[in-house]
């Protein structure tokens, strides 16, 4: 768990500049409509995770932290939009200051540069379900039963898993089509080779026998075994054929 000491918010969402002291207590934010109450929550979430939940998920297509995180008058200056949180981590008995800019949302400045403190903050950033906002909780509660699984997925930020599954399904369909086409081509090639060599079964022994018979007639060394790399015309055009054959096929 992390306790908030204070927050300094500049040019983020609807807030130009604000300092709030939490003194590690549970707090309530109250104010008139549009006064920036949700902005404080957005700032805390952004400071801890680099994300703003209200700009993600269903119905937020096209919204990004980079573009819609800064105050509307500072959208061209995302570097001026930042949050500084002073926190206390009871489990470590340590305090830290996290400064995160909209222009570098994934690279917060953490002081002191303590690996234990960084590990705690990395864990929070990687587990969005730890920092649920009221809005996200309400959305889940109010979701239709048939949509609850989708809402859980959104809460846990598992959209990437859904996208990966979709890509795997597409890959599977494409590979199945390619496989069917390749099987057809193999069947055709085998039938053609079988017909030309006049063999009844497509077995290596029968195939080698037919090929080597012809190679012997043409005076070329026999092929010992068949592998995926074997070339049935290996040795032709190398000058090792019988002289008469070379003349017959115009090689000399």
């Amino acid at each position, binding site marked *: 768990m992390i306790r908030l000491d204070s927050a300094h918010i500049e040019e983020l969402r609807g807030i130009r500049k604000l300092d709030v002291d939490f003194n590690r207590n549970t707090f309530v934010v109250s104010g008139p409509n549009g006064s920036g109450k949700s902005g404080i929550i957005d700032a805390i979430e952004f400071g801890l995770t680099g994300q703003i939940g209200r700009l993600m998920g269903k119905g937020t297509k096209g919204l990004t932290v980079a573009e819609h995180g800064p105050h509307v008058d500072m959208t061209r200056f995302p570097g001026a939009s930042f949050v500084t949180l002073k926190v206390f981590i009871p489990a470590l008995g340590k305090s830290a200051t996290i400064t995160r800019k909209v222009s570098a949302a994934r690279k917060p400045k953490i002081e002191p540069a303590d690996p234990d403190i960084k590990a705690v903050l990395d864990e929070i950033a990687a587990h969005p379900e730890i920092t649920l906002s009221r809005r996200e909780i309400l959305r889940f509660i109010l979701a239709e039963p048939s949509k609850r699984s989708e809402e859980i997925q959104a809460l846990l930020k598992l959209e990437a898993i859904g996208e990966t599954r979709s*890509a795997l399904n597409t890959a599977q369909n*494409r590979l199945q089509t390619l496989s069917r086409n390749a099987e057809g081509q193999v069947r055709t090639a085998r039938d053609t080779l079988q017909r030309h060599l006049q063999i009844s079964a497509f077995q290596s022994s029968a195939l080698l026998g037919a090929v080597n018979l012809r190679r012997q007639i043409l005076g070329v060394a026999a092929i010992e075994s068949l592998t995926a790399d074997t070339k049935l015309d290996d040795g032709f055009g190398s000058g090792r054929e019988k002289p008469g054959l070379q003349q017959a096929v115009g090689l000399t």
Partner: protein
Amino acid sequence: MLTPQQRITEQFLNELGESEDVTAEQIERLRALMATGKKIKAEEFAKVFSEPGGEDVP
């Protein structure tokens, strides 16, 4: 502590590894692909599972 995404990915790869149709090399290539954190295209997955040409005659 693994993220939910990492846990799901690891379980998926472990179950896939139990299949006889998937080689250890393919599992490792998938693991590397899914560890990038980037959106993976279907073509990249298809490439992992595409067999090299040339099958031995029985």
